[in-house]
């Protein structure tokens, strides 16, 4: 049952906040809000002048979801999004794939499908123990097949992200405590089915995700998330706290898409990574390890390491003597994060905003991809004022909340986990070694030759799908048109003979960068093609890889018999770097931002030379080009 929550202490301060960011900071850490508080905060957020990004959300459901509305609206506003909601008629899910249904007209960026277990198979409305083992297996297989079939139809009917949820079961396991021991465990059956479904979606339906609301049961408890009064009388399952948690949880997909992922967490050291001041207390005097409060800092480092392993970079940004900090990183027995875990460091006495700028330049990232965790309110205020695009994380009032201070950041969510993600920090370490060698080499050409670069190019390689979509979404600087594509859109291009989906990876003596460049070309079945997208990860800028890749791409198009290639430069706030790219590679300007290349002409002479050996990807391609 929902219980009256006292108004959180931050509510009055939140209502008085001058802007959205300040209001959001006052509500951290997030506690459940009473409906009246949500209504007041919604009014307040609506009053702020700052423009909001529209978010078109669709909800397809087999149970009542109308009571989620105020929470969808509020949680979206809190993230700077103005919700446009389409709720399909109660019970209408798969019929929404009809082009005349409301879903198509709404053109949602995010579609949430809210099903109950019994929607997968009517037999799931009864206790499972009544089914024989082979019946259950057959039921699970058929349910996964039928559900992925329905989702495939939905995928074809609507662009954008699709998130499937299953309503958490309202009872504890049928076999009680013995369920954990039972050969035919009910919890095991549900877990196995969810995993089989996720594997199917991963392999077959890009842009369709299964989101496990049972994770919210773990967090809030069954009685905390669900309200049996509302379920039995109105078929609305959630408590007020649960409704808010569900809305916030599912909107993460939209926030991530609208505002982009955070790529780097900049961390203060003293009283953030460990308790105490290393310059005064010395490494041995710090709170870090098995005794409170050292346990809290050890836990926080553990959380940070998990984020690093999902592909987020960590950077140290500390006012300290470098030797003092190094002594902890190298020698403290309970320091979990070592030098190798940090992609970059700025340990000096400069203002933090200057150091964040330097870190962004070194890592080739935009400042809006940075979060800062710092215990000092002065430092946080200095950065917030100088660099408003940086996500300054509210520092918890209670130290025990520190390990959880990043839990509520939707922009740290990932939608795929690629090899590049897992190796990202090591890739940056290779880049540091490369730059050090550049400093010693006589000139740029000598240095580039010394790298022994090998480029592996791929054409229409399906298994690169997730990474290609990820690059279109994340690449800002070396990106000629900055068109963002989801996995579903890239899948359609891969399947379309009129499109070429090209990519490359780059290796050298310092390591393998992984897949770092993409070109999407439309019109390859005709005589004139258009380069819709040409981009490259900032990680390999400055090595002439773009010239080698373009040369290979043009050769391929010429060999296919194409006569002309059109290209565009679409200016953004971040891609001035590539303004002259097409002109520098022999393309003629035909209109502002539009370029053209005659493949019958002497275009090869105009291409800059690049000391890179180009090889074709193994097993890639469909041979159509």
């Amino acid at each position, binding site marked *: 049952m929902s219980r009256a929550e006292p108004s959180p202490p931050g509510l009055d301060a939140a209502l008085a906040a001058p802007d959205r960011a300040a209001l959001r900071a006052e509500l951290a850490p997030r506690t459940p809000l*009473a409906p*009246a508080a949500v209504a007041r905060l919604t009014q307040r957020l609506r009053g702020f002048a700052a423009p909001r990004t529209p978010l078109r959300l669709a909800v397809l459901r087999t149970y009542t979801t109308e*009571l989620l509305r105020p929470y969808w609206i509020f949680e979206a506003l809190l993230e700077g999004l103005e919700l446009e909601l389409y709720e399909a008629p109660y019970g209408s899910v798969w019929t929404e794939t009809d082009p005349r249904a409301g879903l198509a007209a709404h053109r949602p960026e995010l579609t949430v499908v809210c099903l109950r277990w019994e929607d997968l198979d009517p037999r799931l409305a009864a206790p499972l123990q009544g089914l024989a083992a082979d019946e259950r297996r057959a039921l699970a297989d058929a349910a996964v097949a039928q559900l992925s079939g329905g989702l495939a139809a939905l995928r074809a009917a609507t662009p954008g992200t699709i998130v499937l949820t299953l309503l958490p079961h309202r009872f504890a396991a049928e076999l009680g405590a013995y369920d954990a021991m039972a050969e035919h465990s009910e919890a095991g059956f549900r877990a196995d089915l969810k995993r089989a479904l996720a594997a199917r979606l991963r392999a077959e339906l890009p842009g369709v995700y299964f989101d496990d609301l049972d994770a919210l049961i773990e967090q809030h408890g069954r009685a905390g998330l669900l309200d049996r*009064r509302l379920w039995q009388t*109105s078929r609305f399952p959630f408590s007020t706290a649960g409704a808010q948690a569900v809305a916030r949880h599912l909107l993460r997909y939209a926030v991530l898409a609208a505002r982009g992922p955070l790529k780097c967490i900049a961390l203060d050291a003293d009283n953030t990574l460990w308790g105490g001041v290393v310059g005064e207390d010395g490494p041995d005097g710090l709170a870090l390890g098995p005794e409170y409060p050292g346990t809290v800092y050890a836990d926080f480092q553990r959380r940070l390491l998990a984020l690093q392993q999902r592909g987020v970079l960590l950077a140290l940004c500390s006012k300290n003597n470098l030797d003092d900090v190094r002594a902890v990183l190298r020698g403290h027995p309970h320091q979990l994060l070592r030098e190798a875990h940090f992609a970059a460091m700025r340990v000096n006495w400069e203002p933090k905003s200057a150091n964040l700028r330097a870190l962004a330049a070194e890592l080739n990232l935009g400042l809006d991809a940075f979060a800062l965790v710092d215990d000092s309110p002065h430092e946080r205020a200095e950065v917030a004022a100088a660099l408003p695009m940086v996500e300054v994380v509210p520092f918890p009032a209670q130290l025990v909340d520190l390990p959880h201070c990043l839990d509520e950041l939707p922009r740290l969510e990932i939608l795929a986990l690629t090899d590049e993600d897992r190796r990202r920090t090591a890739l940056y370490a290779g880049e540091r070694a490369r730059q050090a060698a550049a400093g010693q080499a006589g000139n740029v050409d000598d240095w580039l030759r010394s790298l022994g670069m090998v480029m592996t190019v791929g054409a229409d390689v399906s298994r690169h799908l997730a990474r290609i979509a990820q690059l279109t979404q994340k690449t800002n600087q070396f990106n000629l048109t900055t068109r963002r594509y989801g996995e579903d859109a890239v899948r359609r291009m891969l399947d379309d003979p009129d499109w070429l989906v090209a990519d490359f990876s780059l290796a050298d003596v310092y390591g393998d960068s992984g897949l770092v460049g993409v070109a999407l070309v439309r019109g390859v079945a005709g005589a004139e093609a258009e380069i819709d997208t040409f981009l490259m990860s900032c990680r390999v800028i400055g090595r002439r890889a773009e010239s080698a890749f373009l040369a290979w791409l043009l050769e391929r198009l010429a060999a296919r018999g194409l006569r002309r290639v059109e290209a565009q430069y679409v200016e953004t706030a971040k891609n001035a770097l590539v303004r002259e790219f097409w002109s520098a590679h022999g393309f003629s300007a035909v209109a502002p931002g539009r370029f053209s290349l005659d493949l019958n002409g002497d275009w090869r002479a105009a291409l800059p030379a690049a000391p890179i050996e180009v090889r074709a990807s193994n097993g890639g391609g469909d041979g159509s080009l």
Partner: protein
Amino acid sequence: MDRFEQLREIMALTFDVPPESISAATTRDSLAKWDSLAHLNLMLAIEDGFGVTLTVDEMSEMTSVAAILARVGQG
């Protein structure tokens, strides 16, 4: 603030109507915005606002300002 004023504020926020449009005589039938969905929202807001827990039967009976005040107390 007495109970009626507190209830009026909760109802105004929940139904998105001016507080003056709610009187001691207001019933579910007399207020267009008091539909079944708004009723559930109102019940949840009352639970939070007055710190009470309502049963299913109470929720179905609290269809007027008078009935609500009878449950949460005149204060």
